């Protein structure tokens, strides 16, 4: 049997990003969104690349610049996205990638493609943490469509459990961090810092306004810095090395772009940050 249909890629960008509290697809890495990075990676390996979205996301500018496949199977999470791709092109195998895997490399994708077994439902990596499959960095075969439909008809949404219950090929990871995903602002900060040391331009321009005691200790009212600090907490620590600040950050509040914010808030280039010393109005 010849397997002539080329490999297509599906980048999943339909998640709710609950723990991140921001759209994971839009997270910035060196001036590029996580979604754009993942699509560019997929394009280097697949004959055609599509982005999976829910119907209400189709007009979102972060997503709309790509070729979309809109979920056609209801609120079924990744399973609905994969089924929609298999309906779009039923003869092609699909390289399915989550868009929250910033460390995913060309080597990891190439190894997956080389190791692909078209006689199985899917070829996937085994997690470096729990040994279970990683369904969202995997090649899904056309023959899985029927079983996926049955799975979803049973009200089941977990693609990991699906792979666990069906004939699949599992590969050992070539790099234990390649599939680390980013779900929280803290993980995002760490990922961005780590990627920067490997050459990605992760520096941001942040403006700081100082008031009261901090203004006097900084010797200025405003300051613009080029920084790798991903959160206000890291930024205050970095600035504390430049200026003789005496207030610990536990005694301060922080505002970003004119509104109270959080010490673990993910900063973006161009943000204006104000550290608020203990107040004394009245």
């Amino acid at each position: 049997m010849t397997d002539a249909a080329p490999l297509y890629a599906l980048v999943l960008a339909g998640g709710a990003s609950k723990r991140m509290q921001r759209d994971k697809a839009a997270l910035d890495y060196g001036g590029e969104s996580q979604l754009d990075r993942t699509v560019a990676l997929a394009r280097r390996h697949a004959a055609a690349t599509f982005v999976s979205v829910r119907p209400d996301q189709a007009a979102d500018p972060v997503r709309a610049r790509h070729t979309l496949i809109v979920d056609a199977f209801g609120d079924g999470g990744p399973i609905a996205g994969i089924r929609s791709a298999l309906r779009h092109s039923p003869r092609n195998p699909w390289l399915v990638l989550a868009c929250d895997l910033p460390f995913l490399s060309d080597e990891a994708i190439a190894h997956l493609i080389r190791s692909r077994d078209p006689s199985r439902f899917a070829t996937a990596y085994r997690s470096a943490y729990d040994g279970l499959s990683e369904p969202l960095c995997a090649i899904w075969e056309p023959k899985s469509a029927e079983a996926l439909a049955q799975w979803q008809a049973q009200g089941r949404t977990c693609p990991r459990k699906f792979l666990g219950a069906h004939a699949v090929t599992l590969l050992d990871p070539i790099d234990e961090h390649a599939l680390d995903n980013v779900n929280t602002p803290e993980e995002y900060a760490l990922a961005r810092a780590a990627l920067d040391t490997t050459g990605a331009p992760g520096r941001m321009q942040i403006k700081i306004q100082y008031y009261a005691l901090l203004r006097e200790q900084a010797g200025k009212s405003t300051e613009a810095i080029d920084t790798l600090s991903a959160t206000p907490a890291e930024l205050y620590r970095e600035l504390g090395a430049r200026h003789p600040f005496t207030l610990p950050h536990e005694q301060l509040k922080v505002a970003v772009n004119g509104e109270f914010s959080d010490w673990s808030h993910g900063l973006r280039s161009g943000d204006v940050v104000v550290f608020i010393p203990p107040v004394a109005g009245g």
Partner: protein
Amino acid sequence: MTRFRFTATPIDVIAGRCELLDVAAGGYVSFEGWVRDHNEGLAVRRLEYEAFVDLAVKEGDRIVGEALRRFSVRHALCVHRVGELAVGDIAVWVGVSAVHRGEAFDACRFIIDEVKHRVPIWKKEHYVNGDSGWVNCERCAAAPRDVHAEYDERAARHAHD
């Protein structure tokens, strides 16, 4: 107009009061915070107020809005000075008009207490001995009080009177 404002010139309390006039109100309560000549054992010569105006106006307006809802008063307004102040100057003014006096007193107290704890305004005291310092910043800041709990306790006490 926001219900919380800053001014760099003396606060016009008569103009503020006029903004609260209402034929449905049965009373008006105001509070004036004055620059005292001493603080924590030191003789004070003058004061300096500084504010992060953008956020302070937003937060101050939110506080007044909370007071209007919480106490069902008719109108409320708070004006705060910035810049250099002398002993005896009015640093802050709060005015509230309400159908009955009880809510007006309660709302006025609530607004000044919240403003002191939440609005990004800083006070630098210049002492007669030549020293100066940012209040709450130079020494170990005291643990913040839970003003809501304190307020509810007081309200509950009145309810039993």
